[in-house]
């Protein structure tokens, strides 16, 4: 009796479920038509601004000199900055914001060292590969 019921409804049920899952998948992938929110435009702008702030910082001559003295090629680090996630960039930009406008070289060195630490950690986690001596944990 039970076998009969399963045989009877099995196929349509399977098809139905397959269709359900297909719809779910399409629902997730398809972009949402409609107004693009101010919030998302602002977020994109903020990320962009933070990224260029970090890039500009590394382009500064005094910063590059400090990095040279630390034995790190400036363009190498700049290339790796590009691979950092938005969240990581925001973190570094927030740190740079703390610097006073006419920061002395000592402060700048501190900031650079901070960024090195961030990159070191992300290297260890395997997100970045700035330092050749770091063996990532995965």
């Amino acid at each position: 009796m039970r076998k009969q019921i399963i045989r009877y409804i099995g196929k349509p049920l399977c098809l139905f479920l397959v269709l359900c899952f297909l719809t779910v998948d399409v629902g997730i992938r398809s972009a949402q038509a409609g107004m693009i929110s101010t919030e998302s435009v602002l977020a994109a702008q903020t990320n962009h601004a933070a990224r260029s702030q970090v890039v500009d910082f590394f382009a500064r001559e005094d910063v590059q000199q400090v990095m040279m003295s630390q034995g790190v090629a400036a363009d190498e680090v700049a290339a790796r900055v590009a691979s950092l996630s938005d969240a990581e960039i925001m973190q570094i930009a927030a740190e740079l914001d703390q610097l006073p406008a006419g920061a002395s070289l000592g402060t700048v060195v501190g900031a650079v060292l901070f960024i090195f630490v961030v990159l070191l950690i992300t290297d260890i986690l395997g997100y970045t590969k700035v330092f050749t001596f770091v063996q990532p944990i995965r």
Partner: protein
Amino acid sequence: MLERSLKSAGRRWLACAFFGSFILIASGCSSYQYPHALRPEPQRLHLSEAPFFAQQEYQCGPAALAMLLAWNGHDVFLPQLEGQVYSPELQGSLQPSIVAAARRQGYLAYPLSGWSELVAELKGGQPVMILQNLGLSWYPRWHYAVVIGYDQGEKRVRLHSGVYPGMEMSMGVFERTWRRADYWGLVVVPPSVLPSSATEIAYLTAVVGLERARQFSAATTAYLTATKAWPDSFVAWIGAGNSSYQAGDTATAIRSFRQAAALRPDDGIPLNNLALVLAQAGRRTEALAVIDQAIAQGGDRQEVFRQTRQKIVADSAPIN
């Protein structure tokens, strides 16, 4: 970590403590450094007209908010504010509920941090709500008060605090208690007023909050205020378009999106939103032309633009 958890525990208590806790502060050993931002003029400032509301029981937050709203011409009914701000079983921090309550009245809540912004706001004629920890970091007593002035010569800050209007506090004590609250401050202004310490991104973030609180006409005014200060602000024009559309002001929405599109001719986002407004207004041919232009621009959101086109076509298809 420990400090943070204690902090939130303290907020949950909502302890607006009084002056007994000053004894604790006086015995604190942190050295006081004169805030360098205060050295420039003016030497002294006093917003003597700033209204005062005495707090009830533990409700320093609503009272402080009421003072800022009343200063900006809002007809304040304190018990209503207390209902919106004060929560006996509050979870987490109280600051967001103060910000939210200001937005619900259609006012813009602009957070600030630190001395230079505090002085800029006072100079601009706005009293500033601040959070203080009147206790110690490991034994917090949180309290909201309103700064209405200061005097550099006498090293005093003047506050409307608790049940004391125009209370004077030494700058050292103020600095230490404010620092323990991470220098949190807030100004509350009508959407047509730009706070003196406002920067573009921070201001727009505050207006997005107003928009999210569904105060669409207030948000429109605030975004347009931003476009006066920063005429090239793409986000401000997008925000003005989105909010005015939500408020039912099609003409302003169309004008704003066109302005945004002119600022970034290679960006499809303003065109996408403009097309939807035009379609809504029954201008289908124009809408389709605009969305086709957006699709031609490409970019990350091209798929969204395509969906928008389909939506416009589907919505305006003749029904047989």
